[in-house]
């Protein structure tokens, strides 16, 4: 460094500064009320200054040294500046040398800024140069950071890959409006809830580069370029999450779009939303939070602020879809989706509270809780509104054949599916309808049982109205019997049993049996009355008339009631047996009475014939007996 003197002709001034500092340190050291730590620092400083005095004094030159160091570090920085290669892709030795060089420059800016007098033009120039080199290095580090992140970002595979087959859950697409169509399928809750709680903490980036990212963070923070680091780092992860939502097939939709959307596609989107919500919160953000804490944990609240900024926009988008659904109309078939959404959020509540634990994240936490509350309200309103929908379902024509009305099927399958959501619904309905004290069922089985029973009461009342449309009194009873029997069977054979209880089942078995009895009476009493022994001596002509009249009446019944339908084979069988017992018994008695008086040719049907004909009843396809009568 032969030209040292020419660059720093005024190193005298330098000596003044050092001398003054030395003086200051000594003066401070003389003070009595200093802590031991402080004293030690001053002593160290003292030694250092003394060495410097010696150095400058001996013309070795601190400034030369500083310039030397700067030049050396600058060369290192500049040589990468012109290179097309990325530093972190090359030798680890290169990386550590580069970081060392940058740290050197940083320390030089500090010591130059602290120690050198501002009046000295050359020193200012040196400081400026150091800052300039530092700035270039910072830009470079930011680029390297982006490069490392982009290269090493892990793609969250498994959950996304299986999106097509994953968790089908409940499909209950039927609308109550379409109940005239007979196609309501039984649905039950899929085995979805058990398989989803697995922890999916994965790595946001390749684990090997976390320390690289951290080293960049450390040097940028130390150089006061923390804002640049946070901007770049946060922006990267904000965009990454945005991309992840695209991978999860979450479209950006306005609330208006959602409200106008067809139910089938909306249903589809809700399912995707449920999955995306879970995987974003449980795995994606959980691992991102971990990374942020690894990289930024030692810089205080910076980590949580950056994490919040990086996840906010996408979280809002996700929550917003939920809002749109909760705003929309709630026909009964949406209830299952709403409950699914509610349950997904309720399950994630703890995760959300942990992810956004800090004050800065309260924005998301509050939004999340608000959405959960709103979805709960929607579930409740939809469920309560279901009863009204059932009540409002009116028909103008009698249901053909007296079979099981689609409304009955719909309602029973609907509540049977709902039974799978017992815990959630009981929780949501808790505290509702408290004034309804006289209903003991709600105390025994919980609020949902109460609601179920009130829905079935509404259904019964509605069926009763529908049954009044029949002109034929017997068919009315068949209709009621069929439908109440269906309800009982549904309750008996499913989880609903626990909500309705044996008492309800007994009562309703009684009800449909009553209708069966009423049917017997309505159809057969008049027919059998034709055979009645009126106590007088049988007159041939009268017996013949009776016989003819009975056969005619039986044929009429046969003609109409073969067309009626009792879909349940057991019930059909029972009613036929009941009918047979009554009819055949009466007929045999009658035949016994008149066998002596009239010849067989007047007796059109034997008891066995009748028994066989009765087996044709309630099959749902009208037939008629050959009418050979004249």
């Amino acid at each position, binding site marked *: 460094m032969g030209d040292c003197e020419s660059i720093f002709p005024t190193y005298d001034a330098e000596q003044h500064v050092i001398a003054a500092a030395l003086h200051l340190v000594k003066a401070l050291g003389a003070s009595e009320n200093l802590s031991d730590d402080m004293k030690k620092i001053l002593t160290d400083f003292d030694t250092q200054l003394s060495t410097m005095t010696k150095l400058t004094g001996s013309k070795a030159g601190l400034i030369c040294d500083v310039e030397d160091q700067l030049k050396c570090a600058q060369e290192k920085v500049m040589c990468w*500046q012109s290179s*097309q*290669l*990325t530093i972190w*892709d090359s030798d680890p030795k290169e990386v550590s040398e580069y970081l060392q060089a940058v740290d050197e420059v940083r320390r030089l800016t500090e010591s130059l800024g602290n120690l050198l007098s*501002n009046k000295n033009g050359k020193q*200012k*120039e040196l*400081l*400026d140069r*150091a*800052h*300039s080199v*530092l*700035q*270039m290095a*910072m*830009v470079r580090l*930011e*680029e390297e950071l*982006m*490069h490392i*992140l*982009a*290269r090493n970002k892990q793609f969250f595979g498994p959950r996304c890959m299986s999106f097509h087959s994953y968790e089908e859950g409940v499909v209950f697409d039927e609308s109550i409006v379409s109940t005239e169509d007979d196609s309501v399928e039984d649905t039950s809750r899929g085995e979805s809830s058990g398989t989803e709680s697995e922890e999916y903490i994965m790595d946001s980036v390749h684990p090997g580069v976390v320390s690289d990212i951290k080293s960049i963070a450390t040097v940028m923070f130390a150089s*006061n*370029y923390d*804002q*640049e680091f946070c*901007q*770049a780092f946060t*922006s*990267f992860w*904000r*965009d990454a999450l*945005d991309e992840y939502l695209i991978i999860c097939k979450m*479209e*950006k*939709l*306005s*609330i*208006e*779009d959602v*409200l106008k959307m067809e139910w089938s596609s909306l249903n589809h989107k809700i399912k995707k939303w449920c999955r995306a919500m879970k995987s974003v919160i449980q795995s994606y953000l959980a691992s991102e939070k971990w990374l942020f804490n690894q990289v930024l944990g030692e810089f205080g609240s910076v980590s949580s602020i950056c994490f919040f900024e990086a996840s*906010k*926009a*996408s979280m*809002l*988008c996700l929550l*917003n879809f939920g*809002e749109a659904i*909760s*705003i*929309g*109309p709630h026909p009964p078939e949406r209830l299952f989706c709403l409950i699914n959404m509610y349950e997904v959020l309720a399950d994630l509540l703890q995760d959300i509270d942990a992810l956004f634990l800090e004050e800065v994240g309260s*924005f998301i936490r509050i*939004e999340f809780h*608000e959405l959960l509350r*709103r979805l709960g*309200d929607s579930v409740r309103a939809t469920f309560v509104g279901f009863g009204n929908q059932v009540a409002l379902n009116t028909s103008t024509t009698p249901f053909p054949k007296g079979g099981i009305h689609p409304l009955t099927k719909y309602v029973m399958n609907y509540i049977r599916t709902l039974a799978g959501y017992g815990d959630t619904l009981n929780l949501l309905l808790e505290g509702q309808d408290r004034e309804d004290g006289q209903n003991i069922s709600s105390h025994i089985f919980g609020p949902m049982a109460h609601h179920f029973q009130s829905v079935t009461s509404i259904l019964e009342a509605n069926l009763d109205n529908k049954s009044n449309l029949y002109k034929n009194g017997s068919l009315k009873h068949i209709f009621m019997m069929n439908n109440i029997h269906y309800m009982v069977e549904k309750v008996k054979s499913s989880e609903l049993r626990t909500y309705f209880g044996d008492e309800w089942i007994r009562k309703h078995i009684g009800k449909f049996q009553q209708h069966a009895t009423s049917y017997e009476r309505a159809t057969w009493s008049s027919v059998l009355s034709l055979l009645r022994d009126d106590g007088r001596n049988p007159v041939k002509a009268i017996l013949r008339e009776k016989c003819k009249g009975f056969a005619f009446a039986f044929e009429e019944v046969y003609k109409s009631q073969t067309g009626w339908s009792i879909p349940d084979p057991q019930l059909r069988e029972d009613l036929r047996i009941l009918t047979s017992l009554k009819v055949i018994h009466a007929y045999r008695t009658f035949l016994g009475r008149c066998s002596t008086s009239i010849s067989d040719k007047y007796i059109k049907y034997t008891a066995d014939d009748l028994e066989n004909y009765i087996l044709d009843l309630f099959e749902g396809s009208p037939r008629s007996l050959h009418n050979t009568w004249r």
Partner: protein
Amino acid sequence: DFFLLFFSSSLKPLSLSLSLSSSSYIFVLPLSLSLLSLSKTSTMRATDNNQGSFLNRISIRRNQVVSMDGNHEQELEDLELFQKHVADRFSDLLPPADHSSVDVAAVDTLLSVSWFRKLLDVFLCCEAEFKAVLVMGRDPTQFSKPPLDKLLPELLDRSVKALDVCNAITHGVDLVRHWQKLARIVVSALEQRPIGEGQVRRAKKALNTLLTSLTFDDKENNHSKSTERAWSFGRNRGGAAGNNKDRTAGNFRSPSWSVAKSWSAAKQIQAMSSNLVAPRGGEPTGLASHVYILTTVLVFVMWALVAAIPCQERNGLSTHFPVPRQLGWAQAMIGLQEKIGEEWKKKEKKGTAGLLEETQRMEKLAQSLVEFADSFQFPAEAEKAEEVAAQVAELADICCKMEEGLVPLQQQIREVFHRIVRSRTEVLDLLDQSGKLSAPVPY
């Protein structure tokens, strides 16, 4: 204005009590009492009519025993009061005509962050008052009769559109915060003494990103937006880094709007304001006017937000929407509309920045500072350095204002969002109760 105070101080409990709907009538009562007692005319009338206490009077109204005339009078009173409050609240938002007489510092500059916070407060107050009148003691059958059978569903329809605007604005505020952070970097760099090459370059980098984002033209870049990822260089080029020029794009943030691609703020406002017609004088129900006033307030607020805060596709945003000039309560709003409309005309074609006062000042300073940075030579002239120092101080001041105001503003926008959602549910419940609607609600 005591009434305003009452509302703003008790916004939370109020909305709670209102959300209990009419079945919990007793909770709404305290509000109704204060509503009535605040109106001198109604106090007098109550005694004139010898109907005893307010409580009595309200329950009579609720039971619909009161004669049509009485009902009508009450409606007119409510309306008069509502109009007065709307007029007063909007007058407070008008910049004072005479600058010398007012302490300028105490006034919130038109379109500043603090002005918008006030505006949103005004909206929340108007909305609460509207709902109180709507929910309380009305004969529910009138909701299913003209003109309300049409007006209320229309209001609900506009509310949904407003929700989407709120969402867009929430994201827009995030973008403004991003600008604030870039400006903060500029301040950190140029606050250093002496300013050297390194600081200037640091500032320039942030300024360029800031200005690119501020002047980003939605229309021109619409197509490349989604495909061009600022830092995709690593992946796209199979690991080999591109040239340095490409890499420096690192920090540029294209406005990622978080709404549907086809969504347009301008169209949304257009749809909200179209067919907005003031009820004719002779209309039988005062509620029609209530609905009209609230709708106008809603449209105005959303329009002003869209004009000021960046959001997707604002080209063609109308500079005004028709409010009849003869309406007394609307004078202040019309005044504001004209001022904002003029500003918008000046600014329309200039990128995403929007009319937010802080953003506009930030943009000017950024432009001036980038000029300084471009021509910078070490060491800076003393005069120039002083000028820059003043500008940096102003930029720092703007950053502070944004820092303090933007987060609460964003929270307030969410509050507006949730309020609209809740009210919508309540109005739908009302309509539900009133039974057969003549026209089905679209959603």
